[in-house]
């Protein structure tokens, strides 16, 4: 049975969850991180945050993360949709749950806990 076959099998309440499949998903699918970092281009705090998050991702999530950096001055219309009010704001879109982390990531331990790395 290939992984794709397993993936295509719907997990409904009627079926008993296939533990093997869940483990597989946990290892491979969910660990692809989709992150979005909102920064103010002119602020040192933001530059610091960019450096830290990039370093962390390279260390902990090599090859399985997407990090988008959004300048709030360039794309103000995106702030409403992501409910951003502070900079820097890191949004962890995937894996769920969605999380908002505000601050310049000086509290590395908290960052690691929150992102469940």
């Amino acid at each position, binding site marked *: 049975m290939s992984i794709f076959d397993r993936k295509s099998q719907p997990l409904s309440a009627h079926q008993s969850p296939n533990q093997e499949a869940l483990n597989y998903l946990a290892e491979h699918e969910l660990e692809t991180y989709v992150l979005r970092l*909102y920064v*103010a281009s002119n*602020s040192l*705090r933001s530059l610091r*945050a960019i450096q830290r998050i990039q370093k962390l991702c390279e260390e902990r999530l090599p090859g399985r993360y997407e990090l988008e950096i959004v300048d*709030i*001055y360039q794309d*103000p*219309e995106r*702030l*409403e949709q992501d*409910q*951003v*009010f*502070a*900079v*820097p*704001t*890191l949004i962890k879109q995937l894996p769920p749950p*969605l*999380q*908002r*982390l*505000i*601050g*310049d*990531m*000086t*509290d590395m331990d*908290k*960052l690691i806990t*929150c992102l469940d790395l």
Partner: protein
Amino acid sequence: MVQSFSRDLKRQLTKCPTGIRGLDEITYGGLPQGRPTLVCGRAGCGKTLMGMEFLVRGALDNSEPGVFISLEESTDELAQNVSSLGWDLDALVAKKLLVLDYIHIERTQIEETGDYDLEALFVRIGYAIDRIQAKRVVIDTLETLFGNLLDTALVRSELRRLFLWLKSKGVTAIITAESGDQSLTRHGIEEFVSDCVLVLDQRIQQDLSTRRLHIVKYRGSQHSSNEYPFLIESDGIVVLPLTSVELNYTVSSERISTGVERLDGMLGGKGIYRGSSALISGTSGTGKSSLSAHFAAASCSRGERCLYVAFEESANQIVRNMRSIGLDLETPQQAGLLKFHALRPTFYGLEMHLVKICQLVQDFEPKMVIFDPISSLTSAGLFHHIQSFLMRLVDFLKAQGISIVLTNLTTDGTPLESTDVGISSLMDNWLLLRDQETNGERNRLLFVLKSRGTHHSNQVREFRMTSQGIEMLDVYLGPDGIVTGTARLVKEAQAAADAVARQQEIERKQHEIERKRLIVEAQIQALRVEFEAEKADIDRLVEQAQQHESQLLQEQRSRAKYRYAEDTLNPTNYTS
């Protein structure tokens, strides 16, 4: 001179009209243009609504686009909440006159990992402003930031920056905040707003709730320091700036009839001044309502609309009762000249009454308003509230040249010349009705206690309710003062009898003199007859004597002829 003039203009604070009824009056034009205003108050006192009305009125009346930044309610909730006031936010959004932005800050979804600032909030607000070139901004409410962010020091410094930034954007802003126990706002953000601070408050006294607005601070502008009641009406906020009414309204020298001819006579012959106030006070059953109905009927007969505010009787009852004294109020009512506004005073609070009445007056445009009776307002508020209510009411009406008639029931045991609601000094005219009990009957008396600016009668007059209305009667004074009722009838009969007796006496005297004249004339006639008789006698005697003389002469001549006497030519010789 031109320079100094323009400098004055520059120095003068420009104001942004809010469009909220009454608020622009008490702020002398509106909120400070291009500056933030802090509106603080407890939950449910109307902060959000005031902010929203500021934007809606600005968009509709001044075509100024506005941005509403909500930190509490979602945009859908906001639109729903105000749709009952007839404001269609979606339509305004579609016309690019309004932007609603919900900034959702949920503590459970936020982790703080270090230093941050609220620049993104500024960018969002700035983006919303730029999208529609907004002139007005409302942020509701900033307290949410304190509740959801741990770093209050940072929030404070960012708010300070926010206020400065809003100023630099040149928008007129309303920022709402929760009231605190010790300070104006819970987190002391009033210290960042130096220009204008409004406090909203809701208080319950005697089971009746009143919302109040207070301008705590308004830099660079005159403002009244009073607390103003305000209401959330079916179409928005109404601030009642009526205590700020100045006593500078124009007055009329035209006089209007009271509807009772002889009462007009007592008031200098012409009635009361148009636009003045008249108080009719008296104990129960003295005819206060009937007299005020005369005022109403007189107003309608002049073709002027009259509003009759009845606190104790229904409109139909008043119409029926007045029919019994010959007053037809139904015809003017159907013709739209007379409008009844009948309701119990306790139906709602005094302020609500005031607003309702003011609205009615503005819609109906009456020339006369009657309140019957104001004494029943005591069930709707405390003494000084009623006094303030009536003062504002009277001022409001007088400022528009509307004549006012108030009736007041004087309760037993209180002096007649006072009112329970302490407004007698406000009144221009005061008609005192009372009844007098004599000879086992009660009779009604009327007295003009005061009538400013008229030469009025000082007499106590009796009046009667007849099928043709109120009839003022002549005055009869007895040994114990004015005589009323049956005693007056007796007095009237007495006077009539006296008059008859006097008339008879005159006639008798006239007869007598006529008789005397006849007697005198008869006597004159008799004397004349006697005289004529005597004269005839004398005449006859004279004639006889003359005949005798001529006979003698004749005889003498005959004798002389015989003697050929020479002296026949001189007969006198014989006589000697």
